[in-house]
């Protein structure tokens, strides 16, 4: 007798749980307002990416065209696939001391795996993630970028 009741209670429980699932999908079906799909090319103007989205590695510059990269080369060492090349140069400071500064911070977007190691390990927080994601180009060489802008300088106070 117990088995008999178990048999039917199992059926009812099973059907009830199936209905629970069907209620969710049925609700979605009749509420198209819940659709989360973004209509990409149309919404290009209003598209806002998430903060943690990794589009490409950038080097933020302030309004005086100053960045924070000291040219230490730690990002180059940490990049697992050699996507970063640091070219540094020697200058003489005002006090007459020799100093090594960044000449070109070369970033190969086509080799980058977006692992974020460079951004995390930079001791002076010179790197960040940009939101740009439309990277399609016809020529691969366009994906090699120089991150420090022309004529830019090291920000005051960053060593």
């Amino acid at each position, binding site marked *: 007798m117990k088995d008999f009741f178990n048999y039917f209670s199992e059926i009812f429980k099973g059907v009830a749980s199936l209905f629970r699932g069907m209620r969710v*999908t*049925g609700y*979605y*079906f009749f509420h*198209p307002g819940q*659709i*989360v799909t973004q209509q990409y090319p149309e919404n290009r103007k209003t598209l806002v990416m998430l903060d943690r989205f990794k589009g490409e590695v950038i080097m933020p510059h302030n309004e005086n065209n100053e960045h924070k990269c000291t040219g230490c080369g730690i990002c180059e060492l940490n990049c697992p696939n050699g996507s970063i090349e640091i070219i540094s140069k020697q200058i003489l400071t005002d006090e007459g001391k020799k100093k090594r500064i960044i000449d070109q911070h070369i970033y190969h977007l086509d080799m980058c795996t977006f692992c974020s190691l460079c951004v995390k390990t930079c001791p002076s927080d010179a790197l960040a993630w940009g939101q740009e994601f439309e990277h399609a180009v016809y020529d691969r060489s366009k994906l090699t970028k120089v991150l420090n802008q022309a004529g830019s300088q090291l920000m005051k106070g960053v060593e």
Partner: protein
Amino acid sequence: MAFNIYDFTSFTQSIDQGLNSVMPAFWAMITEMVIIGVAILAFYALVGLFLVYAERKVCAFMQNRVGPNRVGPYGIIQTIADLIKLLMKELVEIKKADKLLFTIAPFIVIIASFMAIAAIPFAKGLHAIDFNIGVLYVVAVSSLGVVGILIAGWSSNNKYSLIGAMRSGAQIVSYELSVGLSLITACILVGSLQLSTIVESQADGWLIFKGHIPAVIAFLIYLVASTAETNRGPFDLAEAESELTAGFHVEYSGIKFAFFFLAEYMNMFIVASIGATIFWGGWMPLHIGGWGSFNMVMDYIPPFVWYIGKTAVIIWIMMWFKWTFPRLRIDQLLTLEWKYLLPINLFNILLMAFIVLMGWHF
């Protein structure tokens, strides 16, 4: 030529008489067969294309997506674009395949569903062939498709295909029982296997209302079992993309693949129309005994619209199943049939017979 959207009898009869007056009876019959064949073929292709589109849209909405929306307004001609793509694809030759069987398998599948569609009453008088054993014929013919699936799996000479085909065989053998028995439950109430009689008998109320409890149970079992019979999710073990890549049609390409694809959707359409015909009255408008004016209003809607509407609702329910439930394992599949559906079904037949005997139906 009398044309009446409420009753096609005079229309089809006038075609018949017209043909018979210009040619001998034998040739008239041949011509009629060709006309019907072409008409059904066109209907088949249209419904198939539309169903593929509908499935994508329905599944997209159930998953909070938009679905096809680029080709044409609301993506309406997406499936036509897909068809053109499939037509132009290369038919890959499988070296170790059994060439003959490999080639005829898709045709068997599609012919089986084609034969079933001939026996479906679309509207009053719009019925290609009205067997007195219509239900039996439809059940028999629609299960022929599995032969094609088995042949496809075997001749591909691929282990995934073979496993998929064997699963499909086990599945059809089991669920065919439930489909047949649940239809028999309905036939007990009507007392006929002829589809036109079954529809006529529902003029004063659909069978699912007339037979109340056992009819509702039979309808639910029919829904589950026919979903399984058409190899659709959650019973799509024969394809099981994640385990068997694509199951029995993994080696097929181009238009041969399209045949399997189309046949799956047409089988869904066929089982849905049989369900609608037998349990929901087919093209018969919704009539409630004694409500004269209400019945009159319902009669204004043409039977063909009723038929399509009911079929569409059942198809929508089957899509709802597919896009809600996860796929069953093969043992769960067989447990469901042999431990639950079949005993309930057998008991249900007895219950229905008893109710008919006592006259407790409406």
